[in-house]
């Protein structure tokens, strides 16, 4: 898939759809079982944050290639309230669900590359990449 595919996130069905599309894409690209699940889980976390905190936004999935490696890039985008204290949001154990490994730090650990940019009042963008091992 050369063209990135964008999934609007407005409700929980959309989250499920984004997980599904991501999982299928990972499968097509030859990712193993556990990797497929990690991709789906990461998408799920990012999409759920959009749904919960920004109301709406989108998940963009794309197949990337670099130096002969195959990768899957997930971009979560929204124009919601943004995150005021990014350092805190990235701290382990800050997620409201209370799980130590959950939320954004969990996504960061599951994926190979992680970048987040957020402006209070403007929105949030999270870009993560998982390379096929």
């Amino acid at each position, binding site marked *: 898939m050369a063209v990135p595919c964008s999934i609007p996130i407005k409700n*929980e*069905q959309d989250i*499920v759809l984004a997980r599904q599309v991501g999982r299928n894409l990972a499968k097509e690209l030859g990712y193993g079982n556990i990797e497929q699940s990690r991709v789906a*889980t990461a998408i799920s976390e990012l999409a759920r944050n959009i749904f919960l905190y920004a109301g709406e936004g989108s998940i963009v999935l794309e197949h990337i290639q670099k130096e002969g490696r195959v990768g899957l890039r997930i971009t979560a985008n929204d124009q919601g309230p943004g995150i005021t204290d*990014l350092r805190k949001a990235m701290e382990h154990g800050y997620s409201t*669900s*209370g*799980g130590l490994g959950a939320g954004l730090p969990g996504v960061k650990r599951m994926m190979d590359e992680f970048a987040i*940019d957020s402006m209070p009042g403007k929105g949030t963008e999270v870009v993560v990449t998982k390379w096929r091992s």
Partner: protein
Amino acid sequence: MHRRELQEQYEKLLSNFLAGDREAQLYMAQQLSKSLVTQDIAPEDIVDFHIQALEKLVQMPEPVRESFQLLLEMMMEYGNTYRQHNVLRDKQKQLESEIDLAVVMQQTMLPQVLPEFEGVEFGLISVPAKKMSGDYYNILQENDVTFSVAIADIVGKGIPAALCMSMIKYGMDAQYGLTPATRLHHLNIVVEQNIDPSMFVTMLLGNYDTARHSFRYAVAGHEPGFFYRACEQRFYDLEGRGLVLGVLRDAQYPEYELNLEVGDMIVLMTDGVSERKVGMHYLNRQELTNLIQGELAHTAQEIAENLYRRLLLMTNYELPDDHTMIVIRRTK
């Protein structure tokens, strides 16, 4: 929630999953597992939920049933690790609440409000790398037209640095009305007598006269700040020599003076600002002034805040050292 209810919830999940509603049930499973983790349900418990649910839902061949015994055993050590993790988490929470108390105490040593003067605006940001800061700063009204500025970096971080800060603070409280050089001279004696030889303090102290817009200061080994000349649109290093505090008993500190025109700006900082590693290389002073240059249209406070944000972004949200910056700008 009760174990029985959790068991039932898991059973329902599995049955819906097997009925074909795959991805939606996996999404539910993710939510459920998050909530189970917070209820201290261990990995082997989940395996047990799974076995029991399967027993009810399908006819299991004997080897499959037996195989779960093995999986259960394999999960035991993960369960132990998980329990140990919970113990550590509780201990850490306790330590953190103690530290939080100390942080509140430390906050009382820093100015809560800044003075206001005609024709001068302040920008200030101070963010600790950990909870407790080793950076000290103060902007204090001395009289109708003069304020004093102090910025210090206690070399060493965290709790020991914070303890040292209280000494600096109380040492300075006794110095009302003295010149920057004299104050540094006195402080040096206090620090030299009272801190561990492995620790030292760098500091810049200055007095700003808002009637003449002159800034007199003295430096004890502190990171040079910047002086921005608006008419030349150029940044200069805020030079100043002087030994760090706490090393040599009778160190002397020369005084320097700057005169500010409208739009001129003094930027003071600790090395948490200037010694930032971006990827593989350390940001140099030119790159730093370029960043400040880009913010000049904003207020002094915005300059301080935006620079902090931009550096944080460039360094992947890592803040290895306490970050303190004071901006003083003559506005008219």
